[in-house]
């Protein structure tokens, strides 16, 4: 040192390290005795300041390491000599034996008492240790901050926790090196035992268990205190999960054997909830997901398929008996183990199909038993009409019943879906698929559905509020959604609609329009285009008629006897004309009806009027679809007024007018009538039947009196006819919409297939025009994709169409191309 260096800065009061030897031992003695005091819970007399100062000084004098080691040694000694013996004292022989695998002799109660004793002792020891260590840490705060940080030692707190682990839990109980049983083992066994008791419904001290679990959570395998090395996770949890697995495997087998599906589900759910509760209140939330997955796998996943399939109480039973609560349980459980709920889906789908097929079968039975006799009578014209009248309407009812049944089924499953299955998306699509399957398996679905609409439009919606109508239509539309062959439906719907329109049978035009807009939304614009065109024709015709009336008035033809005419001009492409007169086969020219002169005149007048307006069009009169109002005078009728207004079909009008020319008492045979009117025979017989056979509307007298109309029957004007009504209607038999018989049906199908052929060809050409070249597979796929909205194209049909297009040189096969491919020829 340089002499004379004055110091302005006062040297620190404490010497700085190197030179001065601290009296470590005396300081340590003070500290050690204080630590002992802390452990014996006499800390309140100790001075924090003094202890801290001592520790501080030791660290400052670079004795931190010694201090650290000494404290650790002190703790180890304390734990080994004071704490562990106390716990071993509490350790009863029963537990020792149980853990070492010796045969269990103890009763459950003994076991519980012994276990709780140990747990309590451990809990106490742990809490004491924690308390003491917190205080020790406070005192040694400076050491933790400085020494431990600089030398990267675990804090004294973690170190002492490690001591607790090693000296209390992990020290083998006996000196025998082979016998490694330690408190930790026994603790695990006891805790598992307690959990097992809890599961079996015995009452255990949950908070005690919780604090022991908490202790295990507070201890780590190493002093780094890595979260994943908690003793709880490394030593207890695996054992616990193993035990749980075993328990639930047995539980599952037992339940399956003893209980029905509902009970199983309730129990399973209860178990899951219990385990969740247990993790929260008794063990550690860390285990929650793990033990849940154990329960789910062992109890639910492995047993669920069997439960669902249970004959007497499984899903089928629940569905049939509307056990919504149980279904909900099943759903919940399935959702736990399988996001797709495969098993449940299969079961429910199977049930839907089954029930749907039942409905189909019932309907088929209803329609098939009855037509049989009519088929047999088919050869005989006589009597057939009358006989088939009843079954036909029955068939219609059956059709409507079918739709109703399907709707009911649908409603029921919708209910199940929303109430029990939480409107699960996957299940919903599965349901839809099942519905689609069985509805399309029933070949008459399109027709029946259309009939259903027809029926409702004609009668069903009478007196219903707008909302009810809306609901009804919506239901119908949902079924429409399931129908694949939408073109078939369209065909039928058009047919039925045209009748409704022409016969003015529709109750509400609003409802009709609503229906169309709904269909438009559901199936698309192209689908409803033609139907809309039909409506348009009707509107145009109404205008036309009134125009014509004005025109006639202007002409000033004052003939008072002149009949009024109302014409519906129908665009032939839009209206299913053949369908409306099904008795004519294609290609056969419809014979022109010979109208009575007064009518013929009007007809010609209208034709002239119309063709003036629209040149180049052709009008074909469809007398079979019209009606006429007649005023008839019955000279012999009872009562004052002898005239009646009768509404008849156009044909009937033509027939009746013939009788005007006959002298009183004159007659005509069927043959004569046919010759003079040129009405097709079957139409004629049908009309004559309603005029001369039907009880209430017997305007003509027939000889001989029988049900059937034969070619040489004679018809007289029935002068004694009486009707209590001033106005009445003589309906023509079978004019309504009803189920087709099988012949009609095959015709419809054939026509439909022809249309489809056209559509398919159009689609193929469209695609090929765009792509120029395409392989066979791709072409088929694209065609199907384009057309599915309308119908499900048959692959064979597509192939045929391709062939036909190749023949017509729209396409050609590309040579030597594997797989086969086509090229578009411009």
């Amino acid at each position, binding site marked *: *040192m*340089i002499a*004379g*260096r*004055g*110091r*302005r*800065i*006062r*040297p*620190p*009061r*404490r010497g*700085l*390290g*190197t030179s001065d030897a601290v009296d470590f031992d005396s300081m340590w003695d003070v500290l050690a005795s204080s630590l002992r005091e802390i452990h014996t819970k006499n*800390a*309140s*007399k*100790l*001075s*924090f*300041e003094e*202890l*801290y*100062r001592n520790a*501080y000084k030791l660290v*400052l004098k670079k004795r931190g390491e010694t201090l650290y080691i000494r404290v650790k040694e002190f703790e180890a000694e304390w734990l080994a000599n004071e704490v562990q013996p106390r716990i071993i004292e509490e350790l009863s022989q029963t537990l020792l034996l149980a853990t070492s695998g010796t045969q269990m002799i103890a009763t459950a109660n003994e076991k519980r008492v012994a276990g709780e004793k140990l747990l309590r002792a451990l809990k106490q020891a742990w809490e004491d240790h924690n*308390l003491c260590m917190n*205080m020790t840490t*406070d005192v040694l*705060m*400076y050491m933790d*901050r*400085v020494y431990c940080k*600089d030398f990267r030692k675990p804090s004294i707190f973690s170190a002492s926790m490690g001591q607790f682990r090693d000296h209390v839990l992990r020290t083998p109980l006996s000196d025998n090196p082979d016998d490694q049983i330690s408190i930790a083992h026994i603790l695990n066994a006891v805790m598992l035992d307690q959990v097992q008791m809890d599961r079996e419904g015995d009452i255990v001290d949950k908070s005690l268990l919780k604090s022991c679990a908490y202790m295990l959570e507070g201890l780590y395998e190493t002093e780094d205190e890595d979260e994943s090395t908690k003793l709880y996770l490394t030593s207890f949890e695996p054992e616990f999960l193993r035990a749980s697995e075993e328990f639930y495997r047995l539980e599952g087998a037992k339940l399956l054997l003893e209980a029905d599906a509902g009970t199983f589900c309730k129990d399973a759910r209860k178990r899951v909830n219990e385990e969740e509760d247990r993790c929260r209140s008794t063990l550690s939330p860390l285990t929650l997901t793990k033990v849940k997955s154990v329960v789910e796998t062992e109890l639910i996943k492995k047993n669920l398929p069997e439960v669902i399939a249970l004959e007497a109480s499984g899903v089928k039973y629940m569905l049939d008996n509307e056990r919504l609560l149980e279904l909900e349980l099943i759903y919940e459980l399935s959702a736990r183990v399988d996001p797709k709920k495969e098993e449940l889906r299969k079961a429910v789908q199977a049930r839907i199909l089954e029930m749907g097929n039942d409905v189909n079968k019932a309907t088929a039975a209803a329609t098939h038993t009855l037509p049989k006799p009519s088929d047999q009578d088919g050869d005989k014209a006589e009597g057939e009409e009358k006989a088939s009248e009843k079954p036909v309407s029955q068939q219609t009812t059956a059709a409507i019943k079918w739709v109703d049944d399907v709707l009911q089924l649908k409603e029921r499953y919708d209910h199940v879906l929303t109430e029990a299955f939480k409107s699960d998306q996957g299940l919903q699509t599965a349901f839809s698929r099942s519905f689609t399957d069985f509805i399309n398996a029933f070949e008459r679905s399109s027709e029946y559905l259309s009939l259903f609409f027809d029926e409702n439009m004609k009668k069903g919606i009478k007196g219903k509020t707008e909302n009810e109508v809306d609901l009804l239509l919506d239901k119908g539309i949902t079924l429409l959604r399931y129908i694949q062959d939408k073109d078939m439906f369209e065909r039928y719907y058009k047919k039925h609609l045209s009748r409704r329109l022409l016969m003015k049978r529709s109750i509400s035009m609003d409802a009709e329009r609503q229906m169309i807009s709904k269909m438009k939304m559901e199936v698309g614009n192209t689908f409803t285009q033609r139907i809309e065109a039909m409506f348009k024709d009707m509107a145009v015709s109404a205008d036309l008629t009134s125009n014509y009336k004005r025109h006639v008035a202007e002409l000033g033809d004052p003939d008072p006897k002149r009949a009024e005419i109302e014409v519906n001009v129908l665009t032939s492409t839009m209206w299913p004309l053949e369908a409306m007169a099904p008795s004519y086969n294609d290609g056969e020219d419809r014979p022109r009806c010979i109208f009575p002169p007064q009518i013929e005149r009007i007809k010609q007048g209208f034709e002239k009027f119309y063709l003036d307006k629209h040149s180049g069009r052709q009008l074909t009169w469809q007398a079979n679809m019209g009606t006429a109002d007649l005023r008839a005078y019955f000279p012999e009728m009872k009562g004052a007024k002898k005239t009646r207004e009768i509404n008849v079909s156009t044909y009937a009008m033509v027939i009746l007018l013939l009788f005007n020319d006959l002298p009183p008492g004159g007659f005509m045979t069927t043959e004569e009538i046919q010759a003079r009117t040129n009405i097709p025979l079957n139409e004629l017989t049908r009309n004559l039947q309603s005029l001369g056979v039907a009880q209430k509307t017997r305007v003509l007298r027939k000889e001989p009196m029988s049900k059937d109309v034969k070619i040489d029957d004679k018809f007289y004007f029935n002068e004694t006819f009486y009707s209590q009504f001033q106005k009445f209607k003589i309906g023509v038999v079978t004019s309504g919409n009803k189920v087709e018989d099988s012949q009609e049906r095959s015709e419809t199908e054939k026509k439909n297939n022809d249309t489809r052929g056209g559509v398919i060809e159009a689609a193929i050409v469209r695609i090929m025009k765009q792509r120029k070249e395409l392989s066979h597979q791709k072409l088929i796929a694209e065609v199907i994709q384009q057309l599915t909205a309308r119908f499900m194209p048959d692959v064979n049909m597509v192939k045929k169409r391709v062939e036909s297009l190749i023949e017509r040189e729209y396409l050609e096969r590309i040579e030597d191309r594997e797989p086969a491919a086509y090229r578009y020829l411009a």
Partner: protein
Amino acid sequence: MVLRKDQIEASLQEEKKLIEDGKLKEDNPLDVSETFFRLCEACRCGDLKTCQETITEGVNINARDRFDYTPLILASLCGHFEVVQLLLESGALCERDTFQGERCLYNALNDRIRNLLLSYDYSKSTDPLQPLASHITSLLTREHPQTSDILVAAAEESFRLHKFILSARSPYFAKKLSVAPDTASWKLPSAIPPQAFGIAIKYIYLGEISNDVGGGPGTGFSEDEVLEGIDKISRQLEIISLWDGILESGDRRLARQRRTDEVDKGRNQLEAWFSNNVLKHKIILDTARAENVKWDRNNGVFADVLLRADESDDAFEIESPLEEDPLQRKPERKNGIPIGPLRQASRSPSRDGKPRKSILFPVHRAMLLRSEYFLTMFSSAFREAQATEYLHIISMDCSPEVLEVVLQFLYTEKTDFPLEIAIDVLFAADHLLIEKLKMKAAVVISTLGNGSMSQIPTRLDAAETSSPAPEELDIYDVVRAGWLTRVPRLEEFGARYLAYRLESYIDEEDFADLVRESANRIKGRQETDTIELLDDIRYYLSERFRLRFEDSGLEDMMEEEPTIATEAETDIDGKLPEDEGVDMGSLPNGDAARGDVNSSSGIMMKDGSSTIRTLDGEMVGDELEGDAINYQILLGKIEGLLTRLKLDA
């Protein structure tokens, strides 16, 4: 977001207007005082010591001089990194989007300073009082340990408060509590909504008052009623500025300024209360009797604990010469030392040879909690935390002066203490785990202890006399204290200090010890084999001499070269200027020097004598060459030292 230039100018204009209207206080008011001028000068030439001194004197470091310079701008412009750091640490503002702030940043001499400015929360300057304010605010909600001593009951709520804060902040409470110091509860007039009182309390506890006063549906009081209540309560408690503060609102800067003023005012109130009560009521008595002091819980200063500090045994040995030494270089600095009645009172008996004295400070746990040491102490289950009839006496392991500094910091955030006790404060702060005070002590040591380092010629001249001027501090102690308390700043400071005076320390045995210690520190950590201290010294050494070479310019040196020819010199002259910034340890000169040293001790001796000659000025007219030789010799000596200590570095 950076404002465009015109935006900055617009806001500057606005600011000017506000200032003219007297609404806004100027951030940088003009200051033409002598002290401020000295500060500016010090900032220009990088005189850390003067800077610290003037700051301690309480000059406004955010003021501006006649040329609109603020000290920070000056320091940053002149490139004095340490000064900039000191200013920023002392609360100099450098705010983005203000005219002065941008000026400061754009004027920064180099990137190092620029980055420092940016890193110092350039965007939002921190309020140095914020920690104090937030601690006091937190007392309102702190559950454990329990520190409140008065319960104010309102309709439904009750507030647990602290008498000393109430009486420091509210004249009303001060009067009321001085009359009846043992009041344990106070009832709020029922006419005043609890919300209003809550706001008043928040204000008293230095919390930030929001504009939303609460009230409205569901609270039982409408907003107007709450406002009215605040009006009433602020008048009753005589804290009118609360009401003013609530009324005013709007401008962000105004609000912040008001907040700063409020906290400042609060601090001053606390300080006044601290010195009027805590310091005034301290008890001075013989150490032997200190244990027997019994203070009732209900005392006039509302203290709930007594801190005891013993006069040190050797107090007079150190202090006496200090007192009596008329040759003190800067006697005026004594004025900075808070020589209160305490010191005189304590000193006189010690001089009379009477028994040791102890001093007891009546203090409040609520404030002590700012130190983690006390927080742990009062939260623990030890004796100090137990409730007793009489106040606990906790003896502190430091001198009364130091304890007073610590207390002053805890109560008021103020830290001015002289260099003499700086190291003690450092240790006390380390002991009590008060990081901020530790830093402050380190700052004091490294600035005031610096001597006139910037004036190197003077230093060399002083060395010329070959009887070194009296040192202000034992640098070895400082370095060791730095190591012990883990303040790297002190080690750096020590290295710098030693480097600039190496010639007077290099041969001392203590220096060798220090180097050995430094080496051992590293060995203990088992890291690299460099010696941190020596690396630092080499670095500062190069800085010291490089400055000289740069001043003179390369060409001059080249001309001089033939005149004096030593091998080493050639090397230096040729290379040193180019190698600036490179770690000195790797310089070729080092090798050359080692060659010198290793060749023989004779050469070393000869070099040594030549140094002296140089320093003596025998080789007249060439100071620069002298420096170069000095540099070489010093480096050589370091190598020699290492060899001797058998340390490989």
